[in-house]
């Protein structure tokens, strides 16, 4: 019988969720191994959530702590919204990976190490004086020492590859072992391997396959692991699923929105971590009528987007915090000339260059207020990788309905995280209606700043006879759009621009609440903390605490009914990965003494952190 369908023969424990982290040197291919485990688990029907964590350096020095790359995945027989707090199993490929990750493994957890990489030199690279494997503190874990280098070498020796090539197969050995441990089907990964290395590199592909199988076989034969685990399929809404990462979902969302509005997509950007992958994805999809423009800087990127928008195209620019700061002045121009476009901020640790590869939520106030003068625009925030697709649809709908730039907030955690996505049926994607005016038959003069019921101005595009008009950053006269220094007109226009953005609330759904419609505590979250907050609230509810969860996707304008919801709870808790930016807005608008839970460590919340705070504020009944 072929291994593809083989089941481990050792005793099987059924569990509802498992959290695994693969940790090794950046060169060890942990990200790839983790992605394979994620896909395979999803394919087997689990819900999954991931957290990749790689070093800031391109190639941090081999074997050092700075060079450790980790990939964490939680797969479960129920919905999961976070990669999990503590680890059921940690695979550590070297000493640096062990010491930097061990803290997250819960007592009794499975610790699988590649013992071949615990030589003197490895310890030295990890700045260790003695071998951590000999440390008594490890006794509280189930330590499994596997000579992965040697076993991999043996597994592939028949192929006569170079030591370097052989070395590169280790991650598949580890993957095989993990697959065995959780009764995972290896066939998808085999497809991947042979798809990846097809041309010319068949031997490498073969080597990876042999390592994968060797890892699986090792599990069967070793005495050190006495049982395996199985995680039944989750009951997800029916449909066709795939895994998506946040940046990928943004890119696809943009293409879908352009398709729905029957427009070409002009995407202008300047590379920056963690936003660059959107550019990388889109430039591969030129056949979708996408033009990607890598500008000379962020200012040129946003300005070219403004030009494209004036030309009648769907225009988008993306960056992260530092680049968004540079776009500030031009965003003000976009607001003044009232053209639709999307500005996407994939947030990272700040301030300044900060922590480029770490996540944070500290750009909310920047995108709301980081411009001269009164310059409001709608701001939406994605809550998870797959939500990035949907948020783009809503943002673009607002942009064209209101003729305004719209900001979308994502973050490094969402951008690189992956989760299952129920693939929409493209045929059922409703069109986004956009009308460009033509010269009226009545011959009345065209007024570029005439307003519709939402206060939007017409989107007249160059090439249209008779509608020639000039736009610019100086204050405009209401209606005509001519330059105006008139005092009353200025006040009027400032109010029109503000009201127009406020009108977005009428186009958006009211705020939903998960849990009791009134009670002791309301937890308000936004953006990437959605999963941790929802899970923590649900846990607290299960404990019988009177707590509800309101996750906000529309940061500006805030949902119409939010104030009325907030009133119904004794206390309000706002967990954020910043110093309290949404809290400030809520306190100002609703004069409620909202409490903050603020973490600013470049990492997402753990469920435990939020849950603990909830317990402080909402006692068991």
């Amino acid at each position, binding site marked *: 019988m072929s291994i593809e369908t083989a089941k481990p023969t050792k005793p099987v424990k059924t569990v509802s969720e498992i959290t695994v982290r693969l940790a090794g040197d950046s060169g060890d291919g942990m990200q790839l191994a983790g992605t394979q485990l994620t896909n395979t688990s999803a394919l087997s029907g689990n819900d999954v959530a991931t957290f990749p964590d790689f070093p800031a350096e391109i190639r941090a020095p081999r074997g050092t702590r700075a060079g450790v790359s980790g990939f964490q995945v939680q797969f479960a027989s129920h919905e999961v919204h976070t990669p999990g707090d503590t680890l059921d199993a940690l695979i550590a490929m070297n000493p640096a990976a062990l010491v930097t990750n061990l803290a997250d493994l819960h007592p009794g957890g499975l610790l699988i190490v590649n013992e071949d990489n615990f030589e003197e030199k490895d310890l030295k690279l990890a700045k260790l004086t003695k071998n951590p494997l000999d440390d008594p503190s490890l006794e509280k874990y189930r330590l499994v020492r596997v000579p992965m280098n040697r076993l991999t070498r043996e597994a592939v020796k028949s192929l006569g590859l170079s030591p370097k090539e052989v070395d590169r197969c280790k991650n598949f050995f580890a993957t095989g072992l993990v697959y065995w441990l959780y009764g995972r089907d290896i066939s998808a990964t085999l497809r991947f391997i042979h798809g990846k290395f097809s041309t010319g590199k068949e031997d490498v592909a073969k080597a990876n396959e042999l390592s994968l199988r060797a890892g699986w076989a090792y599990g069967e034969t070793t005495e050190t692991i006495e049982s395996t685990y199985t995680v039944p399929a989750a009951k997800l809404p029916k449909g*066709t699923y*795939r895994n998506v990462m946040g940046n990928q979902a943004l890119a696809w969302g943009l*293409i879908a929105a352009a398709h729905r509005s029957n427009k070409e997509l002009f995407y202008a950007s300047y590379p920056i971590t963690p936003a660059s992958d959107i550019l990388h994805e889109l430039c591969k*999809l030129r056949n*979708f009528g996408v033009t990607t423009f890598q500008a000379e800087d962020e200012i040129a990127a946003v300005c070219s987007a403004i*030009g494209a928008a004036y030309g009648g195209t769907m225009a988008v620019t993306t960056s992260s915090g530092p680049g968004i700061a540079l776009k500030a002045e031009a965003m003000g121009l976009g607001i003044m000339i009232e053209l639709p476009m999307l500005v996407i901020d994939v947030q990272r640790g700040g301030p300044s260059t900060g922590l480029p590869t770490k996540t944070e939520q500290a750009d909310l106030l920047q995108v709301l207020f980081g411009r001269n003068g009164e310059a409001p625009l709608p701001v939406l925030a994605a809550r998870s990788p797959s939500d990035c697709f949907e948020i783009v649809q809503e943002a673009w709908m607002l942009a064209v309905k209101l003729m305004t730039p719209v900001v979308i907030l994502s973050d490094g955690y969402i951008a690189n995280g992956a989760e299952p996505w129920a693939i929409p049926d493209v045929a059922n994607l409703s069109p986004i209606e956009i009308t460009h005016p033509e010269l009226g038959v009545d011959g009345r003069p065209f007024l570029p700043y005439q307003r519709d019921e939402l206060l939007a101005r017409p989107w007249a595009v*160059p090439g249209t006879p008779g509608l020639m008009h*000039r736009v610019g950053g100086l204050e405009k006269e209401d209606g005509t759009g001519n330059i105006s220094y008139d005092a009353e007109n200025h006040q009027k226009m400032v109010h029109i621009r503000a009201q127009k953005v406020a009108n977005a609330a009428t186009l958006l759904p009211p705020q939903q609440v998960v849990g009791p419609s009134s009670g002791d505590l309301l937890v308000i979250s936004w953006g990437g903390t959605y999963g941790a907050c929802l899970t923590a609230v649900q846990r607290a509810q299960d404990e019988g605490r009177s707590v509800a969860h309101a996750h906000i996707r529309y940061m500006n304008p805030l949902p119409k009914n939010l104030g009325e919801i907030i009133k119904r709870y004794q206390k309000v808790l706002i967990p954020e990965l910043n110093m309290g930016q949404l809290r400030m807005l809520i306190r100002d608008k609703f004069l409620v003494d909202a409490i903050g839970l603020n973490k600013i460590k470049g990492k997402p919340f753990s469920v435990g952190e939020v849950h603990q705070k909830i317990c402080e504020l909402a006692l068991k009944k």
Partner: protein
Amino acid sequence: MNAPLPVLTSNDFASDQDVRWCPGCGDYSILAQMKKVLPEIGIPPEKTVFVSGIGCSSRFPYYVNTYGVHSIHGRAPAVATGIKVTRPDLTVWVITGDGDALSIGGNHFIHLLRRNLDVNIILFNNRIYGLTKGQYSPTSVEGQITKSTPMGAIDHPLNPITVALGVEATFIARSIDSQVKHLAYTLKRAAEHKGTSFVEVYQNCNVFNDGAWAYAAERATRDDTTIELEHGKPMIFGKDKDKGIRLNGLRLEVVDLKDGKFKESDLLVHDEQGDPNLTFLLGRMRHPTFPEPIGVFRDVMNTTFDDSVREQTNQAIAKRGKGDLQKLFHSGETWQVS
């Protein structure tokens, strides 16, 4: 593009806004010549877009009845890029000043030129910041006394022509606000060139830098202080056409045609497609040592950014077929939940 469509007149390009430049400003003449040339080019107003930054010169778009964007300081080239790349069917003009293009906007300016996007840049060079009332600019001469340099400017000025050449611009020209015929001709040539056309116009700011170009602009002196570049013609200048430019080894020199020592045939013959280093020499001809060339320094062909973009899009479609969302979403591993 050459045959003027009789239907269009300069009135078709006149906007209803009253012009707000100072009386006597050189900008008026440039506006007038542009309005004269636009109908001759034959692109209808609705197919024409003027993009500018901020500055007196950048008010220009309001005064022509085409589409237009009066953007922000220094960024016109970037805005124009977005328009032209997505709307190659439009004719795009960039109107800018010496501060707008060479100070805050210097980077966008050189990147537009290197990409050779098919737009026309007209730089109104008055060697001063006009709109902000008289600070020095990157083209102000050393020692120039301005509001911000009461003891004289100490920066070595930028030479727009050599800057453009340094980034391999494909069309480089110069004209003077007051030389209306020459200006009109030069604007037309810029419009005709495919790729980025760069035209430096000597423009008089009679309020904050009056007479900066007097030597080149005034009847009395201009024949001796400027030389008109004409493709294929020997480089002759002077009131009585009695002086010429000769290439002596790698250097240029002014020679006298009267004293019989040199004749026309000894002179340098201008070649718009000539070696860039020769163009570089012309670009560095500076008053008073040399007469300053006006006209087209360089007019060569190279691929344009907007064409290349389209080409790649078509290739992509040809190779992979028009994008299919359904296919894209289902690429890679998927699974059913039922």
